[in-house]
């Protein structure tokens, strides 16, 4: 069972598109996958997956689940390739709510909420907001693994150090109370790559500068059909089936299939040997 959070402190690097398309690729491999949307903003994973109304719906929400007044399986949506826990706009006030109520386990709410269902899945993928806040803390602690999508630019490279600082600080502090806790970086995913010389230079320098972080041997190209898939509220695999892709765009499908293989292997050595660049 793999639990991972797709996160970067930079916005717009492709966290949500990575989450939904990796989830779809895993699901199409026959692996039971749960996507968890923790981002309260309207343009999040739930909207991309075709459930924008869930963000403002009445009734039981992810916020109720995190606060312990409802069970997670009450809100899971079964989609074609994956199951989805939709986010809700009320998540925006979760931090103030738990502080006001003095809930001392605020950072562990998602881990507790997931416990009853994790055995039902091969993979749990969490998509939190970019901004470091309580929702990100919950995602990091609940998953224990981070996948970092990165645009291959100087700015993108600078954002990696911020993620690594957060991961290191959280892991070291929490290990004082829970020595068995680990928070691993599964790797950096080169995303929105257009093959420019700058992309290549950044990739090379990233591999040289980050000894402890693997740059995944998967490259997701930068094609605007991804935006069309978002508009159509479809993952790229379903978009390809329903609307079609140009031949060159099919490398997107290969990239997410390769990423799914890498995540399924869940072993750094095995990832290296099973994934083609």
């Amino acid at each position, binding site marked *: 069972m793999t639990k991972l959070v797709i996160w970067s402190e930079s916005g717009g690097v492709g966290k949500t598109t990575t989450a939904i398309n990796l989830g779809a690729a895993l699901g199409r491999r026959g692996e039971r996958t749960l996507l968890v949307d923790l981002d309260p903003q309207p343009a999040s994973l739930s909207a991309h997956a075709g459930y924008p109304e869930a963000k403002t719906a009445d009734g039981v929400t992810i916020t109720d689940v995190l606060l312990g007044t409802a069970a997670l399986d009450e809100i899971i949506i079964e989609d074609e390739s994956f199951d989805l826990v939709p986010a809700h706009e009320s998540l925006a006030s979760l931090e103030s709510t738990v502080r006001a109520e003095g809930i001392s386990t605020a950072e562990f709410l998602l881990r507790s909420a997931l416990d009853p269902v994790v055995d039902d899945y091969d993979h749990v993928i969490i998509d939190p907001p970019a901004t470091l806040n309580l929702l990100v803390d919950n995602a990091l602690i609940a998953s224990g693994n981070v996948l970092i999508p990165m645009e291959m630019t100087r700015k993108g490279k600078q954002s990696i150090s911020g993620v690594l600082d957060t991961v290191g*600080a959280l892991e070291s502090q929490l290990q*004082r109370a*829970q020595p068995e806790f680990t928070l691993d970086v599964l790797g950096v995913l080169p995303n929105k790559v257009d093959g420019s010389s700058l992309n290549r230079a950044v990739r090379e320098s990233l591999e040289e500068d980050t000894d402890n972080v693997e740059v995944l041997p998967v490259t997701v190209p930068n094609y605007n059909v991804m935006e069309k898939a978002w508009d159509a509220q479809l993952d790229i695999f379903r978009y390809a089936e329903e609307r079609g892709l140009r031949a060159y765009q099919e490398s997107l499908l290969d990239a997410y299939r390769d990423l799914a293989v890498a995540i399924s292997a869940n072993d750094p050595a095995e990832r290296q040997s099973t994934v083609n660049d």
Partner: protein
Amino acid sequence: MSKKDRYAHLGNEPDGDTPAERPADADGRDSEVHITIDDGNERTTLTVDSDAASIEELRDAVRTASDDTSPAPLATGVRSMLATQRLVFNMGITGAVVMEQVASTPFIYKPR
């Protein structure tokens, strides 16, 4: 605030001890007491460090907590927990308070 400062509280229990620093029980487990409260509509589980109170003390405290006038510290603590969880608690109605001693979990509340 640095990121290390942001997460500093996660390494400490309320009194500054950590499970790693605290002696384990004779059976080798850090022990805590889980209190599951069922008011007929919802269930919630609270966890209390067994260093702070025994199961019997907590059971008495939960019973006493239905009496709002009790000044007992444990009863006050339990009332605080119940208020925090926004539970409607009435022993006479719910009739279901289950306590069990379990292995260590990170969720620790010390009624002081």
